[in-house]
């Protein structure tokens, strides 16, 4: 035990004896770890945030509505009060909250004008279909009717009343740019469940190809009481269930009424009404995000691998320069294991020191990239520990071959060559 400790101490002494070389090796590790901590923080932090966001879209909510299929010439699917009645009857024993939804695309004017928002006429139960809280005010009541009041999504409030805090938007009126007009007063502002709205808006090139029903989940809506839009047609019916068991039962019953569309089936054979369990979407989208995060690991792994290859090569060259020292240590009684431990300790000490140096470097790098690229690069301290472990692994792995070479050295051959 004591000889191993001595070997470790000898390793540390060697690191101090060659300060320039050790510092240069540590810099290599520092750069690799700075990249690692940045990439891991971005990958997993972004993935975690987005999955947290979409989980707020209502895990126990089912949407029923017209299938989003473009079928020119085919008669438009009917979806209105009779379907709402069928849904309510089918779920009568499940304590389900059913919220009929009518939507219209509209322009609106507050302090600023917004060309396109979704006007969503819903019942006071609508918030129960989401896991999103109000940041200001209240939801409208059953007594409030027509276009007297509205609740805004936070991003819609910010677009209509730029620079005004949500609390200060309450009581303000907005003018709806539609034939029938309307000047509802804002009574509430719904929180924005999208942490990265700026990124989403900047790259959401497909926004115009989403249907009105799909646009609802962009959360740039104006919610008005159910009676504000009087069409007998419905856009959708939201069904919120109280627990997992009743969610599963409700889903089964609704899918028995309107079978789920398989994306592989030709559009002309698809059902005209769709049952859409939000949880499936949340899980599928979350899975895609996770897969993306896994793929993102390739970047830091590549950088660490490159660092590992170069440090291994460097260490091998260094060992070659230290044959005499190693031979003398063997003659002094050091075992092969002691030498392997010594070389590994040297590698670990240098790389962990480099890893620690890499953390502030990573912080500065993330800060610079966030400003330049306008993307949520960040330094997440939770992943700093992971990065330090990576740096230790880098040191250990890049010491394996040099340690083997040092341990396998025959002192007699080295010293005899030296003497002759």
């Amino acid at each position, binding site marked *: 035990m004591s000889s191993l400790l001595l070997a470790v101490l000898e390793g540390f002494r060697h690191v101090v004896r060659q300060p320039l070389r050790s510092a240069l090796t540590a810099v290599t590790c520092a750069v690799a770890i700075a990249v690692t901590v940045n990439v891991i923080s971005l990958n997993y932090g972004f993935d975690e945030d987005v999955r947290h966001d979409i989980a707020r879209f209502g895990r126990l909510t089912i949407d029923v509505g017209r299938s989003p299929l473009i079928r*020119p010439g085919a008669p*438009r699917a009917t979806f209105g009060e009779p379907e709402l009645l069928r849904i309510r009857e089918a779920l009568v024993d499940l304590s389900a909250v059913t919220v009929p939804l009518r939507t219209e695309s509209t322009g609106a004017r507050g302090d600023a004008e917004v060309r396109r928002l979704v006007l969503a006429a819903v019942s006071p139960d609508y918030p129960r279909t989401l896991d999103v809280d109000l940041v200001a005010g209240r939801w409208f009541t059953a007594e409030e009717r027509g276009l007297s009041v509205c609740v805004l999504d936070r991003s819609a409030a910010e677009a209509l009343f730029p620079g005004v805090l949500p609390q200060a938007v309450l009581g303000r009126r907005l003018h709806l740019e539609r034939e029938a007009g309307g000047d509802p007063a804002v009574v509430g502002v719904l929180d924005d469940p999208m942490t990265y709205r700026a990124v989403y808006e900047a790259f959401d090139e497909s926004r115009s190809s989403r249907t009105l029903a799909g646009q609802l989940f962009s959360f740039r809506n104006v919610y008005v009481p159910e009676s504000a839009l009087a069409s007998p047609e419905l856009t959708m019916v939201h069904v919120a269930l109280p627990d997992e068991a009743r969610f599963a039962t409700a889903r089964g019953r609704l899918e028995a009424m309107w079978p789920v569309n398989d994306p592989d089936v030709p559009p002309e054979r698809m059902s005209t009404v769709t049952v859409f369990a939000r949880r499936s979407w949340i899980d599928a989208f979350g899975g895609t995000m996770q897969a993306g995060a896994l793929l993102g690991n390739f970047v830091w792994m590549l950088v660490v691998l490159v660092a590992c290859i*170069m440090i291994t090569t460097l260490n091998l060259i260094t060992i070659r320069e230290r044959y005499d020292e190693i031979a003398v240590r063997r003659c002094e009684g050091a075992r092969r294991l002691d030498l392997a431990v010594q070389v590994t300790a040297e590698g670990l000490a240098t790389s962990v020191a480099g890893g620690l140096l890499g953390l502030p470097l990573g912080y500065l790098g993330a800060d610079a990239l966030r400003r330049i*690229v306008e993307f949520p690069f960040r330094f997440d301290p939770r992943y700093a520990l992971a990065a330090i472990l990576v740096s230790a692994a880098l040191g250990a792995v890049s010491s394996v071959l040099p340690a083997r070479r040092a341990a396998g050295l025959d002192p007699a051959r080295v010293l005899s060559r030296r003497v002759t």
Partner: protein
Amino acid sequence: MRALDNVRLGLSRVRRRPVRSFLLLQGTIWGVAVAVFPAAVLQGTTEMVLAHGAEVGGDRVTIAADPTAVDAAPLETEDVDALRRALPDAGVAVVALAGLRVEKPAAPGPAVPDAFLHGPADAPAARGLVLAEGRLPVAPAAVPEVVVEGVLAGELARRSGGGALGADVPLPDGRAARVVGVLRERTPLARRTNDFGFDTEHPVFTGVTGRLLLHLGIPPGDDAWKRTDRCAYLVAEGTRVDWILLRVGPAQLRAAARAAERVLDGRGRAVVVFYPPVYPLLVGRELDRFRTVSLALFLSCLVMGAVVMANVGLLTALRRAGEVAVHRVEGATRRDVAVQWLVEGAAISTLGVVLGALLACALAALRVRLEPLAGMRWAFPWREAGIAGAVAVLAGVLAQALPASRAARMSPVDALVDE
């Protein structure tokens, strides 16, 4: 001449230790690769879209009525006229514009069109199709006239034993239409490309991207006819329009889509507007800021490479003391020794740059292969590669500065005594 000798000497060291040199060059190789690879894909794709937009859907906006909208009014020819009037005012230079009504055949079969497309006579131009022979249809005509797409024309020609012109095509109402024009057959890639610019037969599209689009709330369409090249175009009767097709320059794709959406919104239409979402980001150079990320990775790899090279240089300066001493005894000045080391650094780094550029090409080719976007290509980005290469060589030379100074300051007498 002496400089050439120095280069030869530097390269001979690489030859003597090829594996070690290769391993030590990893930083330079990967650094150059991560700098050049994204630029290669961005440049190649942008060039492809600008030069061959029609083939990969990079010049087309397609509009349909929103199937989920409450009380959605169908599109009509008046909407197309409104677009024709309003788009130039919005600064959009319209290449072609047409509204099409789609009619399926009564009984599909060989030499029967997959769809009859009712629209203006020049409607094929709005889909990027070119007349190969004959003329465009006129209406009214004693016998209904049609223009047929390339693959269908081939089938009609085989059936008649001659050309497709003059052949009869059965209409869904039982009448026969005469073929008066044949459109040039589209390339296989164009036939596979959908309104989003994706290659619909690419395994990544069928397995991942197509499903992702559904998850994002983008509606699929009953529009397989767009990709068969087996349709017939007739001059429209009536006002109903199922699809509006708009062709503009690839640089105006987004502006055209936004303007069209605004015009139709203003007319009370709820529409879905399709166009390849990636191309405007590329052509508008909005993805260029992400080059900073590849620059950061490039610099990271380069710093690692340079630091390791400097470290190895310091070691070898000691080991090559004898060689340096002999060189000095032969008449080389301290400056010659320093220059020799710096040239060695430059020569080795240049080798790393070349290998890195080759690796970047391989990565770009692989990336293009895995991408379902029909217009994704790669092209060698000479400017970016030149800059990356110059910086990498400079870094290699700087990395050798400390070892070069140490070697130059070495006393030949001491070194030979030690030997």
